């Protein structure tokens, strides 16, 4: 700003000048206060999200076994990725198909199940709704404990396992089936258990969203000629609860890709028997915390990050608010 001679100005000009200065100052103040306001978030986000991602990406370019210093791999640090795509037969043959199967069924399946359950609950009185929604939400809260106590007993491989006992008694099978150790069953059981415990946070959000839809809208629609419930859902309910739907979708996607502990908890082994229930998370665990090949595990994590990010983008495209 050029130097201004205040003495040469008229009163009006001077006032205008002071106003300009004041507004500039307040703008600066605003910027500072905004920066101060977001600092805690930025700090936390950087410390717990950005830094780990960068570290993981950095590690994924190296050999790292926790003892020796990380060593950059050849060529250009891409060794781990090349290995993953070309040499890791277990990854290509079992982990990818398993993860896709698991994620496709448990993700959308659990999501639709959550919505249907929430919608049904929204149709009944408040008293029973609270009790039933708590009952539905419980499995996702206590998942780990339940799996090792309830489901391992139900699917136990000896003749005293509940399912085996029932099947044996009714003459459906001749000898006890090793449900949790058999490649034919493990993944399907994992999917079943995951679906059972899929009524999580997303479910609660959708329930809340459903209950918040303005009742008068339905009445208005009825006047406008809506004939059945299906039209209600498509034309009113879902558009009204888009944010909750989006939240539920993202939670379902992340949940589906991160639910690796189930296979290990059920079968009691990592890798799971004949890699039958091996998901990408188990593979990361296997290499990171059992074989201590941190670089390789980090590379898989980075791939997983991109996969989840990709699917979340799809969810945003479907349910996100469009400006």
């Amino acid at each position, binding site marked *: 700003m050029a130097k201004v001679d205040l003495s040469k100005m008229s009163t009006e000009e001077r006032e205008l000048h002071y106003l300009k200065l004041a507004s500039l100052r307040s703008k600066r103040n605003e910027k500072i206060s905004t920066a101060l306001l977001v600092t805690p978030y930025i700090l936390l986000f950087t410390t717990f999200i950005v830094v780990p991602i960068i570290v993981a990406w950095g590690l994924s370019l190296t050999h790292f076994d926790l003892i020796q210093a990380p060593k950059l791999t050849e060529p250009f640090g891409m060794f781990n990725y090349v290995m993953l795509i070309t040499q890791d037969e277990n990854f290509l043959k079992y982990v990818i*198909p398993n993860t896709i199967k698991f994620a*496709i069924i448990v993700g959308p399946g659990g999501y639709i199940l959550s919505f249907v359950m929430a919608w049904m609950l929204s149709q009944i009185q408040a008293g029973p709704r609270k009790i039933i929604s708590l009952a539905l939400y419980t499995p996702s809260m206590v998942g780990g404990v339940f799996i090792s106590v309830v489901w391992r007993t139900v699917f136990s491989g000896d003749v005293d396992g509940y399912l085996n006992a029932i099947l044996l008694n*009714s*003459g459906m099978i001749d000898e006890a089936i090793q449900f949790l150790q058999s490649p034919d069953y493990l993944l399907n059981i994992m999917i079943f258990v995951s679906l059972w415990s899929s009524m999580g946070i997303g479910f609660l959000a959708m329930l809340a969203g459903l209950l918040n839809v303005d009742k008068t809208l339905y009445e208005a629609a009825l006047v406008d000629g809506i*004939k*059945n419930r299906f039209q209600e859902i*498509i034309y009113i309910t879902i558009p009204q609860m888009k944010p909750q739907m989006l939240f539920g979708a993202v939670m379902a996607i992340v949940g589906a890709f991160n639910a690796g502990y189930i296979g290990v908890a059920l079968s009691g082994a990592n890798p799971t028997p004949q890699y039958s229930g091996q998901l990408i998370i188990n593979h990361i665990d296997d290499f990171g915390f059992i074989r201590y090949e941190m670089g390789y595990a980090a590379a898989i994590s980075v791939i997983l990050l991109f996969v989840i990010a990709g699917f979340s983008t799809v969810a945003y495209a479907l349910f996100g608010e469009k400006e």
Partner: protein
Amino acid sequence: MKTINKYLIITLLLIVGYVSVHSIGASSATTNTFAIDRKGQFVVTQSAYLPDQTYLDVDVNRAVYVDKAFETLRENEYLGYIIDSVLLDQVENQAYLTLEEYFEGYVISEGFADEAEMLLDPTYSQDDIEDAKDSIRLLLKDDKDKLVIPEENDRYLALDAAEDMFIDKNDFIYLVDTGNARIVIFNPIANEVIGIFDNDEFESPKGIYITDDYIYVADTSAGFIDSEGSTDGNGSIFKLDFDGNIVDRFYKPDSASFGQDVFAPKKVAVDSQGGLYIVAEGIFDGIIQLSQNGDFLGYFTKNQVQLTARQRLENLLFSDEQLEGVVDRNPTSFSNIYVDINGIKYTTSHGENISNLKKHNTDGSSSIDTNWGFDMALVDVYTDAQGIMYAAGDQGYIFVLTSDGSFIFAFGTESDEDVVGFYNRLSSIAVDSLGRIWTLDSESAVLQSYTPTDYSKRIFSALTLYKDGKYAEAVAEWEEVLKLNQLSVLAHNEIGRNLYSQGEYEEAMGHFILSGNRNLYSESFWEVRQDQMQKSLPLTMILVISALIVYQVVKRTNKQYAYLDRPKAQIKKFTDIRIVSDVLFMFSFIKHPLDSFYYLKRKEKGSYKGATIVFLMFFVTYMLYTTSKGFIYQYIEPSDLDLGSIILGFYSIFFLFVISNYLVTSINDGEGSIGEVYKGVAYSLMPIMLAMLITTYMSHKLTYGEVILLDLVMNAGTLGTGLFIFLAVQELHNYTIRETIKSFLMTFLFMLIVAVLIAFIQIMGDQLVQFVIALFEEAIRNVFII
């Protein structure tokens, strides 16, 4: 002259009887070898074994043959063909004829009508038979190269109801001569009986097993004899040394856990520790296992009770008292047990629709599945040094299987033909060190051997080569097998496996297609695909990255220069053509199903032409899906499909649904017209059409590991189409959900009624046509003739 003819014909009959009873070596035409083709059906293949030596019970005098000949003729009306193949060269490859047909032709051509009459009359005198004896001897001496007839005292085994045999390491055959209560040791090389154990203790020996040191004999009725000389009614197992002295004897186990009333062991096998495995008559609990001291250890393995659907229902509904009333559900009993040199146990059973041959793991479960989908009761099993299994079926079939339980071939007679065939009752099978199969017929007391042909020898050696890891040599050997039998599924499969083991996956794939082995094809294909993917990985990466860059560049520069506007406008011009937009309309259902049906109803979008094109596109897709999936997903070969009925069914179901739905809804306040229902249903086919296209294409690129993806796509497509059809009915007729469901149920009921009606009309139509024709014929006859 007449008597000569008579003798000639009687001679023929003698041969018939002789052949029919003993199925002599020269008549190899009666032996068919079967293999399994790629569709799992039995096909006749290259002869695997040739009948070699036949040892008859020549103790039975020849008059019996004459008797049997006539008896057979009376029982079975056609035997002409056997006479043909054995004796007469006049008619080559004669088909099966009835006796009358055969003799009519023969006798009339030779002018022996009277003899034929006499011949069919079974009253013949003893003198005739004596004469016949002489004449047959004469005839057979002349024709020795054709017929192997035993010399009088040669090969004299004089067996009676021989139930079992075993071949020791010297290739001596131990025959259990049950009827005469003795063991006959026969040396087939020297062609002499080298020993007979006829201990007084033997009552009814039925099974034998030989270890390096001892001979074990199972006897069903040689029970414990108390001081008063009366037996306890049980059987026992004898342990003999090689001189025939009884070393030890195992009676009924006195352990309390052996809760059986009777102990009647009929077959026995012994492991290397001397533990006994016993199949006993009337015991359904399984194979009795005794320690080397005779202590009862339990049941080694058992067959499962096979319940019919009705029995399952009874189990579910009946009270305990009612269940006591029904017949016991006993499992299939075992027929035999065998322990090979490695201590692996094999059992046979004669059940229906179960694995009758089992190769047992140590816990008693079976490591092979031999449920071939037909009822073939097995009586005995034997293995050779390579672990190849030879199993005998009681109807006269001999099955040969690899050590991992895959079927190599079977040979024997067709069981449903009434030619008195190979065996009256095949009772035992054994294999000597030369690979010859020995079989024993207990009823006619015939011991028959077979030598492997070049074909089967090559198969066995190739199997051994694979086991030893000499893959290249095994392939060479299998190729020789293919020269002998080009269609051998086994050979192609094994070549594929050998190539797979050598890492030559692409070649292996071709052989797996020929053998129909989808699992290993999938494995090989995985390797090939992996290889291709690795090779093309850098190129793909470069392409993907450059495509992304090009996309971004075009996107940014287009903002400034708008050079894409013209092509865009042209595309829009194309999609704005009515017919194109009507076809493309089907994709709008994905995002806005309800709106789309609304537009369809308001005739704002979509048209008959568009719907018909979508429908025809779906038809083409459906045909592609049915006929040209990738090998591992195309379970039925296109050549086996009945395309006519598939097409007919396709169209009739579609139009039947449309018409039925319209008819049902038009009387139930439905707003939609028949044209709207047609359009709605046709547009609803979009999801399943997409799914079928994707599945058909991807099935060429995927292996079994990824089968779930295709399942998901197909399920999603089917669900989508189902949902759309539901919505179509709901929206087009302006129904509530309840009304929609009701109209669906009524539609399906109506479709069923129409289908039944059509079937009824089709059946009755013929009758009607016949009736009308008859009516007119009658009328014409009455009008013009009278």
